């Protein structure tokens, strides 16, 4: 970095226009840096509070030196959008929004990490990040006798791409659907015509692809008369609830754990079979800090007979630490000593729990696969899977 910075108002204005207006609020107190999960890792020094100042000066990605640009780009794309910085910020600055604005510009120029580029391309071409055919989107539901959604049904169940296609995560969608059926919930699925909700795509800055997804899904919801959507992923939940309404607001969304809690209160589902396990619940950042759903998942778990619910001391609820899967972290990789999932799992292991309960397909994947690479054997289960087991099913 050179000692003299040339102020570049063009860069500043472009970033602010792309949605980075929060930079103006920042007074560089550094609380964001203290709360950022990356800085919990010994190896990383992620100077988050500098972003805003540098953007105000137009001094980000302004270098002509390839190595400096590369380092800057790594930093810009490191943020997983867990929002712990916004939570701590005295002025409510969302660094993930600020960085998203910077990313939009980089994505427009095509200069972003190759592995993200492939996911965005796959998603754009096939409607899901796995690049699987749309026809297979409801394969998970084979044999479950779930109706195609139509206007006479109360809810559309939108399982998110990973549970729709991934062999392991399919079990989450299946357990959920079986519980809903058992409880007599009136719901249906669409499948083929759906597009990924594209929340993660928006976070990496591929705004145009996000817009394509929104257009597709809102047209579809309109056409089919969807009023309420149940989501398995907190990421679909967030974007349906907070971002889609800007384009179409005639539908509402809720996270499946909220519905489970309601159904339990109404005695529509009664967990009977004992699950004699100590379970630790990991708050997904998107469901917790960002959507403020903390209690319903816990209520569901606590109502299961035999189950002992434990917490990660201090780092629970709004202080939960990200699994690293957000903003397409699910598709990226870092050296082992730079993996957020490793750090979080070490915290989780200390609780001595037999099972890690999650309420997000990203957390499920990140933890399961990281546990493997750590050479451990610790089951990770979605709340729907534990609940289904306690309803007297395997």
């Amino acid at each position, binding site marked *: 970095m050179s000692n003299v910075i040339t102020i570049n108002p063009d860069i500043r204005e472009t970033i602010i226009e792309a949605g980075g207006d929060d930079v103006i609020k920042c007074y560089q107190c550094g609380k964001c840096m203290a709360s950022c999960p990356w800085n919990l890792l010994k190896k990383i020094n992620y100077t988050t509070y500098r972003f805003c100042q540098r953007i105000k000066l137009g001094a980000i990605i302004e270098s002509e030196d390839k190595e400096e640009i590369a380092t800057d780009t790594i930093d810009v794309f490191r943020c997983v959008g867990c929002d712990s910085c916004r939570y701590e910020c005295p002025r409510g600055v969302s660094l993930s929004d600020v960085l998203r604005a910077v990313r939009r510009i980089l994505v427009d120029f095509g200069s972003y990490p190759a592995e993200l580029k*492939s996911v965005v391309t*796959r998603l754009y071409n096939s409607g899901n990040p*796995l*690049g699987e055919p749309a026809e297979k989107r409801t394969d998970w539901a084979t044999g479950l006798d779930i109706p195609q959604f139509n206007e006479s049904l109360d809810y559309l169940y939108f399982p998110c791409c990973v549970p729709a296609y991934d*062999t*392991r995560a399919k079990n989450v969608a299946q357990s959920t659907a079986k519980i809903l059926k058992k409880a007599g919930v009136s719901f249906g699925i669409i499948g083929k015509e759906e597009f990924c909700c594209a929340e993660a795509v928006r976070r990496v800055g591929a705004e145009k692809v996000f817009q394509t997804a929104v257009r597709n899904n809102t047209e579809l919801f309109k056409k089919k008369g969807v009023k309420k959507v149940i989501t398995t992923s907190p990421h679909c939940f967030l974007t349906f609830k907070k971002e889609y309404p800007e384009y179409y607001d005639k539908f509402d969304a809720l996270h499946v754990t909220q519905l489970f809690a309601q159904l339990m209160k109404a005695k529509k589902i009664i967990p009977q079979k004992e699950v004699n396990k100590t379970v630790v619940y990991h708050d997904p950042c998107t469901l917790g800090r960002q959507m403020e759903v903390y209690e319903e998942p816990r209520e569901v778990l606590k109502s299961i007979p035999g189950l002992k619910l434990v917490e990660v001391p201090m780092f629970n609820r709004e202080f939960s630490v990200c699994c690293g899967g957000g903003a397409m972290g699910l598709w*990226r*990789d870092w050296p082992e000593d730079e993996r957020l999932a490793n750090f979080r799992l070490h915290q989780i292991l200390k609780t001595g729990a037999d099972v890690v309960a999650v309420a997000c397909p990203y957390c499920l994947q990140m933890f399961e696969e990281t546990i493997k690479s750590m050479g451990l054997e610790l089951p990770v289960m979605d709340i729907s899977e534990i609940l289904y087991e306690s309803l007297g099913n395997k």
Partner: protein
Amino acid sequence: MADIFALVEHRQGVIRDITYELLTCGKKIAEKQNTQLTAVLFGHKTEPLLEKLKSYAHHIVVVDNELYKEFNAETYQITLADILKKKSPMLTIIGHTAFGWDLCPALASQMNTPFTTDCLDIEITDNKLKVIRQMFDGKLNARVILKENPSYMITVRSGSFPAEQGNLSAEIEKIDAPIGAEPDYRKFIEYIEAAIGEVDITKADVLVGIGRGIKEQTNIPVIEDFAKAIGGVLSCSRPIVDAGWLPKDRQVGSSGKTVKPKLYIALGISGAFQHIVGMKASDIIIAVNKDPNAPIFNEADYGIVDDLFKVVPALKEKILEVKQAKG
């Protein structure tokens, strides 16, 4: 009818395989066009090379000079342009290799010759050259018809015309080099060999992917042996890289490389989606896994449910047998 010319590619004294493919291709076209095939060779101390080439063409035009000891696209361009101007062949074929990429566009432009690259198939009818080449990252085969012209130039993808044994006896014509020295602005300096261990798995036709199912690092040599025997290269899933058993550049998957080999053999890989997205475009996928429910079987064209340590030796033996039978 004018001749067909094919440019000989050699490196460090060895004729590259592509040359024989070009000559096989050239001979076929020449036969159909009722004309003859000329191999063009630039080199130094070319006797042994000429000996090898003799049976593949009707004529060999050779420029033997120290200048051509190593490939330099500039000297080649000047020399070949000179020869083409004098001899006006109807078609010049060159390999679609680093060598051809470097030379052909500038040469075609200098000669003002219609030119197309990376051809998979070639046909000449009524003096019109029609070729097949791929588009959209290999998803489409396109037929391209070149503007009618007395002469054409193409580069040919390696492997498109399997080399056949030659049965001709070439007449050799020696020509003097039209220049005295390499141009100042571009000189051959040295060969830099790729460091051992550096392999580009995205370029391999056959990949043998290993996963946690191989259990111990000490089991890798057996699999490597197997890979070599079938002409393949080792790749792996992330845990193998995490364990430090293979370098990161061998990792297939969302955070590794995306590969599209002709054959991908997955040994002891469960098939997590981060792995699958990196290899599902392979032409043929064979999976070996103990667990019949492993997701990898959803992607595989052929699946073997068994212990990989039993399957690999058996597979190796069979493949070698078939290879031997085919000569």
